[in-house]
């Protein structure tokens, strides 16, 4: 009977043409689709492959040593080249000497991009050599990591399922077929079997087509490498090989396709229209696709999640930026139990859809079928399990990836000093080396003012508050390209918000002018910092953590916190409350810990060690136990600020001093006029000192470079 149905579909109704059409469509989609791969590697592909050819596979100690040596050699040559260039420019060597010496190293330096790329791969593997192999990853990334709905397969399945089970009802030939000998259960079961066989076959053919395409375009070397070798899967909870990942993806997609087909069969049976059934089933895929920007949410919608597949293997990862270009998007991983629940729901859901349709379409089915109330109970139980599954999966324990640090007065990295101009409130950046001063907020349609700011390795974050509406917006500016984007905004303390008209003129004006000053003050943000996708804000009596990708806010600490008494280090918030007691709050384990410190009025974090100024203006160090620097008294106006090796402060006699972190010795820095505050750089010896300028007698921040030391 399957053979007859197959002949009817593929020969008589020419489904083979549709099938071929889908294969061609898939090829066209693959040709024109964007594949998120490392384009830099593609640019230097041949040289890159040549460079890595002898190192591919496991990172052995020999390979490690050799790669490290090659890169050191490259760095040395770069240094030599720079020195030679300087000498040549200064006229210390002639052009002939320069050419002769440079000629020897130019071959290696010409290859610098390839060496950099290879070194990145080496560094990536070196982080976890037991789980990562050295590998040319672009082919595998394109095949496994790119989230794409296989449109060709989905269209084929929708049409096949709806046509196979809906066409007879639509043309009213169903009753004739039903009255034949095999037209009852036999035909239904045969069609179902044919459908499943077709789904598996089509999925296999299209998946193979994809693999062959990427094999020819990029190449799929070393299939036995662990999946963590691919940067997109660096945090994957599965310890599997790449070929196994392909098989798992195929299984996910097949299960998703089966669920989709069973849903379509169900709708075709109910609506008795081929197109209607196809469209309704299609909506279950395309609506979540259109509605959810975040990748993770899509994976909780079945059968869409299963058809996409790759996200289940990924694990959590943050956005990876390189030179202002997004290499990989952030992703919240789906835990293994959640995946198991989703798989169970897929299989169970397919079974329920099959049983319901089977019962209606076959005499055998209705004979074996239970009574209606049993079905109703089963349906309710199934729905409950599905809902519980989705809720459990959606509320699975969040995996944090917290690694940044924050402390008021933290030194600035590199050679850039970011500050808000005291007079105008404009966010500016001074480059110490280039001696240029740049306005950072370049959007001409916006005011250039910033309230608070925070700087990390890649971005400068700042806040802007709209006084009328009370809306606080958090922006970030990419350091190299100055590309700005809004990451989050929230209404804080609305005073008077003139909406103008709202809801197409239904509401013309709303004035909320009864908000008291105390409420406004309470909501005022005193500090903020960003760690990955989390935005931490400190107001008068709480510390909140907001996932800026979806706006979900959690209150971490509910306590009155002293000004300048908060620090953060890789998921731990240190703070001092109004009574002067210091605490550490662990975000991941949600635990408080009282720190055995005396009462203090400033808190500062440097190299994971807490420093504080106590109520007697003495500096202390807390590293499990308290150590005071007894001879030092700090000025009332001064904060603590740290570079890599020193902590800077202004003492009670308005002198700038620093403590050497390795020897704990104090040194004084000559500044000429009395100083009132100090800010240090993390990586250079220059400092900013707040003092009275000699010619103008105005108080301003003055930069003192390393020569003063």
């Amino acid at each position: 009977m399957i053979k007859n149905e197959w002949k009817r579909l593929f020969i008589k109704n020419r489904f083979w043409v549709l099938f071929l059409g889908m294969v061609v469509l898939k090829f066209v989609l693959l040709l024109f689709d964007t594949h998120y791969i490392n384009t830099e590697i593609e640019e230097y592909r041949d040289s890159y492959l040549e460079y890595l050819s002898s190192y591919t596979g496991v990172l052995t100690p020999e390979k490690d040593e050799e790669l490290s040596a090659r890169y050191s050699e490259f760095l040395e040559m770069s240094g030599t080249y720079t020195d030679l260039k300087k000498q040549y420019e200064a006229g210390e060597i002639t052009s002939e000497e320069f050419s002769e010496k440079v000629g020897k190293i130019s071959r290696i330096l010409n290859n610098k991009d390839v060496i950099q790329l290879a070194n990145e791969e080496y560094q990536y593997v070196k982080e976890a050599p037991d789980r990562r192999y050295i590998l040319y990853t672009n082919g595998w990334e394109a095949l496994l990591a790119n989230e794409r709905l296989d449109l060709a397969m989905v269209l084929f399945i929708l049409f096949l399922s709806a046509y196979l089970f809906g066409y007879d009802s639509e043309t009213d030939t169903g009753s004739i077929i039903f009255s034949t000998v095999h037209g009852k259960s036999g035909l239904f079961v045969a069609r179902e079997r044919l459908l499943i066989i077709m789904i598996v076959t089509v999925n296999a053919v299209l998946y193979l087509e994809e693999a062959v395409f990427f094999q020819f375009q990029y190449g799929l070397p070393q299939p036995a490498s662990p999946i963590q070798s691919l940067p997109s899967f660096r945090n994957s909870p599965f310890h599997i090989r790449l070929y196994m990942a392909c098989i798992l993806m195929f299984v996910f997609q097949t299960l998703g396709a089966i669920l989709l087909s069973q849903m379509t069969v169900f709708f075709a049976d109910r609506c008795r229209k081929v197109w209607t059934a196809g469209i309704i089933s299609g909506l279950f895929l395309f609506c979540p696709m259109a509605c959810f920007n975040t990748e993770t949410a899509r994976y909780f919608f079945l059968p869409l999640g299963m058809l996409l597949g790759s996200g289940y293997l990924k694990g959590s990862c943050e956005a990876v930026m390189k030179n202002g270009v997004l290499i990989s998007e952030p992703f919240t991983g789906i835990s293994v139990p959640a995946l198991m629940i989703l798989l169970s729901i897929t299989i169970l859901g397919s079974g329920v859809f099959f049983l319901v349709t089977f019962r209606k379409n076959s005499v055998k089915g209705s004979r074996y079928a239970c009574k209606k109330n049993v079905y109703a109970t089963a349906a309710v139980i199934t729905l409950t399990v599905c809902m519980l599954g989705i809720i459990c999966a959606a509320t699975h324990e969040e995996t944090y990836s917290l690694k940044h640090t924050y402390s008021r007065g933290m030194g600035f990295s590199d050679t850039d000093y970011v500050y808000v101009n005291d007079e105008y409130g404009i966010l500016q950046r001074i480059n110490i080396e280039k001696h240029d001063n740049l306005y950072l907020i370049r959007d001409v349609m916006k005011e250039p003012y910033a309230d608070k700011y925070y700087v990390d390795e890649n971005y400068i974050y700042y806040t802007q508050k709209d006084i009328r509406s009370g809306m606080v917006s958090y922006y970030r500016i990419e350091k190299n390209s100055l590309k700005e984007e809004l990451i989050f905004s929230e209404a804080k303390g609305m005073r008077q918000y003139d909406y103008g008209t709202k809801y197409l003129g239904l509401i013309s004006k709303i004035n909320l002018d009864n908000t008291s000053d105390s409420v406004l003050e309470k909501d005022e943000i005193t500090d903020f910092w960003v760690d990955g996708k989390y935005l931490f804000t400190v107001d008068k009596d709480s510390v909140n953590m907001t996932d800026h990708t979806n706006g979900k806010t959690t209150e971490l600490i509910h306590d009155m916190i002293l000004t300048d008494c908060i620090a953060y280090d890789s998921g731990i918030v240190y703070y001092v409350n109004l009574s002067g007691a210091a605490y550490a709050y662990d975000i991941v384990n949600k635990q408080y810990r009282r720190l055995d410190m005396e009462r203090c009025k400033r808190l500062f974090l440097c190299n994971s060690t807490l420093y504080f100024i106590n109520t007697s203006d003495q500096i202390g160090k807390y590293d499990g136990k308290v150590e005071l620097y007894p001879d030092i008294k700090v000025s009332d106006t001064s904060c603590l600020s740290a570079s890599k090796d020193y902590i800077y402060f202004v003492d009670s006699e308005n002198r700038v001093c620093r403590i050497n972190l390795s020897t704990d010795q104090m040194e004084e820095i000559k500044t000429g006029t009395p100083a009132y505050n100090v800010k240090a750089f993390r990586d250079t010896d220059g400092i900013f000192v707040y003092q009275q300028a000699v010619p103008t007698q105005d108080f301003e921040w003055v930069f003192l470079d390393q020569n003063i030391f």
Partner: protein
Amino acid sequence: MKLWYLELKKMFFTRHMLFLILIFFLVNGGRIILGSRYDLDAIMRRSEKKAGEFEAYEQALAGEMTAEKAHKVKEGHEAYFAALGTGEYDKENNYYGLIYDLYRYQYDYARQMQEFTNRAKENAELFDRLGNRFDAEKNRQIAGIYENRFIRNFYDCRDFKFLFSYDFSTLLILLLALAGSFRLFYMEYQNGTQQFLLTSVNGKKYIAFIKLGAYFFFLFVLIVVFSLEDVLLHAVLFRLNGWLNPVYSIPDYQFCIFSGNMLSYYLFLWILRYMAILSISGFFAFVSFLIQHYVIPIFFNIFAVIFTILLSERSSFSFTFAMLLNPIRLMEPDGLARSYNSISLFGRPMPVLYAAFIAQIVLTIVFAALLIGLYRKQICMISGKEPVKRRKVYD
């Protein structure tokens, strides 16, 4: 053409529909008049004009801006502030005191915009150097839009903003569109005329096309009627002057991305609104055909409208692709046109307003094509026909 006219007449120009239009027309008029009485800004502006004490000075100042006039306004403004402490009142100086900011804005506009565009050009150069192509292109677009702008004639055009930001009539048209969609297909089933249409020699595709065309034309007529009412009532209430002055003569429209005069801006706004109405009406028609039932499509469409309105008010959807597809955002085009906002399309910036306009054209075509396609095949989920009962089969 005759068929099209018949469709129009049969479905829309009926007693009930005309009565509904009349009621809505009166409601709209009432809303404009009441709105102008309860809106604080509008009350102040109207009371200033109603007193008519400055009319002569206003007429004297209106027209081409010259250095002499500017000097006169400045002197009058200074004299007005000097007199504030003494309590002396001079009507002319008082007028100059009130109008000074507006006059200075219009007089300085060209220079300010020149500075603004220069800043945008500098930014474009900087972003080019930094390799940030998107922002460089965006700044070049901004410079292109706001370059060479100037205001030649002075008029107190501030009251035009009440007209431009008035959106309530769009809501009424939307409700009428909903009522119209209900008459598109369900009435045919109810009256039993569907069979005649389906067996017509013109073919189903043609019939669907004509029905949709008549529906869209009906909306066009509604827009003409309501827009005329809006403009007439606002012109009477606020005594609007300076129709041919550029729209950026209003300080609130300093960065308006449209550079034409008030009249053309008003027409431009209605073209945008019409496009949004077409798109949402296409959806109404599609749903009304798909679910040919007395109540369900109306509830469904109302729910869809409320949902899209609420969605359009969510700030998190601002300037995203989801927003572009939301017709309600384009139904309030004034807010989008007042300043330059861009969205990234294939890595290039595009003004949000134009992107939304194109998105709505595409949506309208999609809904129309879907409707015509389904009408040809007569594929609908719930039809007015008696549902075919399932035959019970016994073993």
